[in-house]
């Protein structure tokens, strides 16, 4: 096990001090990162002591380290999962060849694009969430938000490390550009759509961490298979962090549902919980529809020659390629999908390699359902008939063959007029947004206290009670 070394300004397990040039480049980037963090990170909490976990090594115990830290002092560092000896490329056209420890020239641009696209999402989500602290429902949630934020910052470091180490001047320029783009800024937006969508209330935040971070999980799983070993090792470690982000989302939504169920009971099983200051189930479903579909877009087009060449080259595999599949060339196999082209729907077989985005999206859809099952069990236990449903993957899409096709959440193609007319049943309206925001005007900074619209968590963090002072705000 390679321990985290703190002999440079940048904690790392990559023996950074032995590569002075790289060390200097990263140390030059560090102040720019900090400036970005101060400008675009959580607003109004930079001087607070936050009880955060910090990586001290990359094995499972390495996460055991929790302590108070001011966010700008967080030890952002570079951690790669341990090298697997004699690792071979295990899918695509180069099966059996040793993995690349340097960037193969042939794939340089493609790899850089993959890394930049992934890297861009990390600071983007911090930007999207920067004002949420000011409306937090509890110190517990506030701390979870910041934990997610600093770790997204670290994910940025992970990608920047790859850019600096392996991509020369281009890589350094891209690393700089990652700090220049801004989520939602029409002049310099983040690369992917969902990362420019506003995330301005906590219901959105929990849906985001449940659905959008889960896209991150699947992208990382696919990149963890990469034949470019530094990318594989980096993403394997990032996955351990991502799991916590999805936990925040899943438990957050669940606690809102629990609270709504309680309020419904108080109201005599009436669905109209808005009177009692809760978030009604149909509104929750609308936010679910929104963030789920924005996240589906992140997987790219259904039929993709890019995806095919990533796979062929051994740059990006399927999730759990090694574990879950026996055949790894994906040649002479097909994938059947409903093709919608020029207004016509047909069942079509396409080459499996060209369907790699869709294969990954299948895994994602299946995985997404699991949280809904849990949430529905809460409703079942409380004797409430409402059930949450994942909308059809054709619904509300902006990328791929369903982009801008008017489709109902059930997957039915309808007219544009009907879609516009019924949109408010399916997606949050300005009024819904205003209502949800109205619940969250005052932050809750009192230890152990919860906002009215959310139930407390079952337990605190790392053995601490729920009423622990997770954030020392303004003290």
């Amino acid at each position: 096990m390679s321990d985290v070394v703190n002999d440079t300004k940048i904690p790392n397990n990559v023996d950074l001090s032995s590569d002075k040039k790289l060390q200097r480049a990263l140390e030059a980037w560090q102040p720019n990162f900090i400036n970005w963090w101060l400008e675009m990170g959580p607003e109004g909490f930079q001087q607070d002591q936050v009880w955060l976990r910090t990586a001290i090594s990359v094995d499972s115990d390495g996460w055991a380290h929790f302590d108070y830290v001011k966010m700008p002092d967080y030890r952002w560092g570079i951690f790669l999962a341990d090298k697997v000896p004699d690792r071979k490329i295990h899918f695509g056209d180069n099966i059996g060849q040793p993995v690349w420890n340097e960037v193969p020239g042939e794939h340089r641009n493609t790899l850089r694009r993959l890394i930049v696209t992934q890297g861009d999402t990390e600071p983007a989500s911090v930007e999207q969430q920067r004002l949420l602290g000011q409306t937090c429902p509890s110190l517990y949630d506030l701390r979870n938000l910041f934990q997610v934020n600093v770790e997204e910052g670290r994910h940025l470091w992970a990608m920047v490390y790859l850019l600096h180490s392996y991509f020369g001047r281009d890589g350094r320029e891209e690393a700089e550009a990652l700090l220049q783009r801004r989520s939602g800024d029409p002049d310099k937006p983040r690369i992917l759509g969902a990362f420019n969508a506003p995330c301005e209330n906590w219901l959105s935040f929990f849906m985001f961490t449940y659905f959008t971070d889960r896209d991150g999980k699947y992208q990382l799983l696919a990149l963890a298979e990469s034949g470019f070993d530094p990318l594989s090792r980096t993403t394997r470690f990032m996955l351990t962090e991502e799991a916590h982000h999805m936990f925040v989302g899943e438990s957050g939504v669940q606690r809102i549902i629990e609270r709504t169920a309680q309020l419904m009971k108080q109201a005599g099983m009436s669905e109209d919980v808005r009177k009692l200051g809760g978030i009604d189930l149909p509104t929750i479903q609308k936010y679910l529809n929104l963030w789920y579909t924005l996240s589906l877009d992140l997987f790219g087009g259904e039929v993709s020659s890019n995806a095919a060449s990533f796979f062929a080259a051994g740059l990006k595999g399927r999730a759990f390629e090694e574990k879950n599949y026996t055949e790894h060339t994906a040649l002479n196999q097909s994938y059947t999908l409903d093709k919608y082209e020029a207004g016509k729907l047909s069942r079509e077989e396409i080459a499996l390699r060209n369907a790699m985005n869709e294969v990954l999206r299948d895994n994602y859809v299946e995985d997404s359902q699991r949280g809904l099952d849990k949430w529905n069990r809460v409703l079942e236990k409380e004797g409430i008939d409402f059930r949450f449903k994942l909308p059809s993957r054709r619904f509300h899409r902006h990328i791929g063959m369903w982009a801008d096709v008017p489709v109902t959440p059930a997957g039915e193609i309808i007219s544009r007029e009907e879609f516009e007319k019924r949109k408010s049943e399916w997606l949050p309206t300005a009024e819904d947004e205003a209502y949800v925001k109205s619940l969250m005007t005052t932050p809750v900074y009192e230890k152990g206290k919860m906002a009215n619209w959310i139930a407390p968590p079952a337990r605190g963090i790392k053995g601490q009670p729920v009423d622990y002072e997770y954030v020392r705000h303004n003290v």
Partner: protein
Amino acid sequence: MIDVMDPVAFETHPDRYKHWKLDLTDASSGIARLIMDVQEDHGLRSDYVLKQNSYDLGVDVELADAVQRIRFEHPEVRAIVFSSAKDRIFCSGANIYMLGSSSHAFKVNFCKFTNETRLYLEDASSESGIKSIAALNGVAAGGGYELALACDEIYLQEDGNSAVSLPECPLLAVLPGTGGLTRLVDKRKVRRDHADVFSTVAEGIKGKRAKEWRLVDDVIPRSKFNDTMTKRAKELADASPRAKAKGPGMPLPPLAGSRDRQGAGWIINFKYITLKIDEKKRVAELEVRGPDHDPPKSADEMRKLGPSWWAVQAFRELDAAMLDLRFNFLDVGLLVIRSKGELEKVVAHDKALASLSGSDWLAKEIALFQRRVLKRIDVTSRSLFTLIEEGSCFAGSLLEIALASDRVYMKDDEDNESGIRVQLSPANFGPLPMGNGLTRLQSRFLFEPKRAEELRGREGPMTTQDAVKAGIVTIAPDAIDWDDEVRVAIEERAAMSPDAMTGMEASLRYGGPETLETKIFGRLSAWQNWIFTRPNATGAKGALTMYGKPERPEFDWRRA
């Protein structure tokens, strides 16, 4: 292999455009907007989908029509702004699946047509003062960037996404076929090493570096983009000499023609043009008829005649016939050209056009149009033989067709009784240059540059003997041998390898200086033609064939 479902039609009108919108709301400020919004299910064939503003021939036909109409119908327009109606994408270039599934001949003809359209845009700028701006409000890839390169100025929206690229080499193992590489270094004067890097990075270049490397003129934030483009277009429009254009434009109505089966071929008939196709012999016969009315004596009369003026209509019909031949009759290797009419009348019309075009923008447009049609003949990859017989009228502008031919046969009647003559006019001495910048007479006498100038004074009809002496005629068989000589020459030519003839003719037609234009067509018929047929591009495992397929291309690594 079927390249198109029906014969390709080149006639269209803004009311019928599927893929472009000609927006004239700012025409009073001198600005026309051409907005690309390709309808993906309206390709010329149904086996590909025109995603992401990718184009096929049908899309380019509309573009060519739009530029042509702006020139003739909208004298108030002095600047064209090109942009896209699609979010994030300006134009992703020629549709790759269309290229991959088209015959070689179609691919090259497609490239040739798009080249002509791009050159027309440049011609509109240099000759007519219609400046163009590529307002790249999204990714401009391949042919999309080549369209931008044909504009006077290129502006790239800065939004983190928009980039310019020529991904043909790294992605498809072919060349940017519409003059992209040539315009990079020759027109925009991009450094050759920068151009090398740019042309091998599939994702292209954006932002500051795109400007530093001269790939674009400026990079402008999204929020200021539209306003900046309008402002710049206004400046260009205000500075344009076309601002002085007086008098209304001239609408271009559809041509009335017929297209019928005839024996083992087709007969395509217009008022002044007949094209007969003999599919068995692989020979086409073109007849061009001279004027049947008096030339206009004033600009007003010219406008009254409008598109029915012989100088306009005959050349529009000729253009249509040449395109029909080029796209719909690939097996025809030889075009035999004849004419019918009165020499004096052709000369009179040429003179009328020459004198009007000194002072009237519309007359100048007509002359420029004739010049484009003749250039289209120059780059036609068919052997061209002109036959000058009784009743022919190869004078002035029509004599240019003969001079564009690979060979000129003129019947020799020793006693000069049959009246077979040719004649020069002002049209032969300047207004109708070739792509190399020289007149066809200058190109003919490269060994003796003074000779073209000496012919300027030659008024009146020339007999066969005179024409031979003047160097206009290749072979002058006498009347007794004529039929046999001509038959043998035609049969012999039609039997030659079409590839060898295409290469030979293209090499010989453009003697003298190189220009951007000759380089573009020369490189198209040499490099691109060759690369398109190499296994590395179009073999079973070639990159163009494999594009979008699950396997990766395989290359034959030997350098040729």
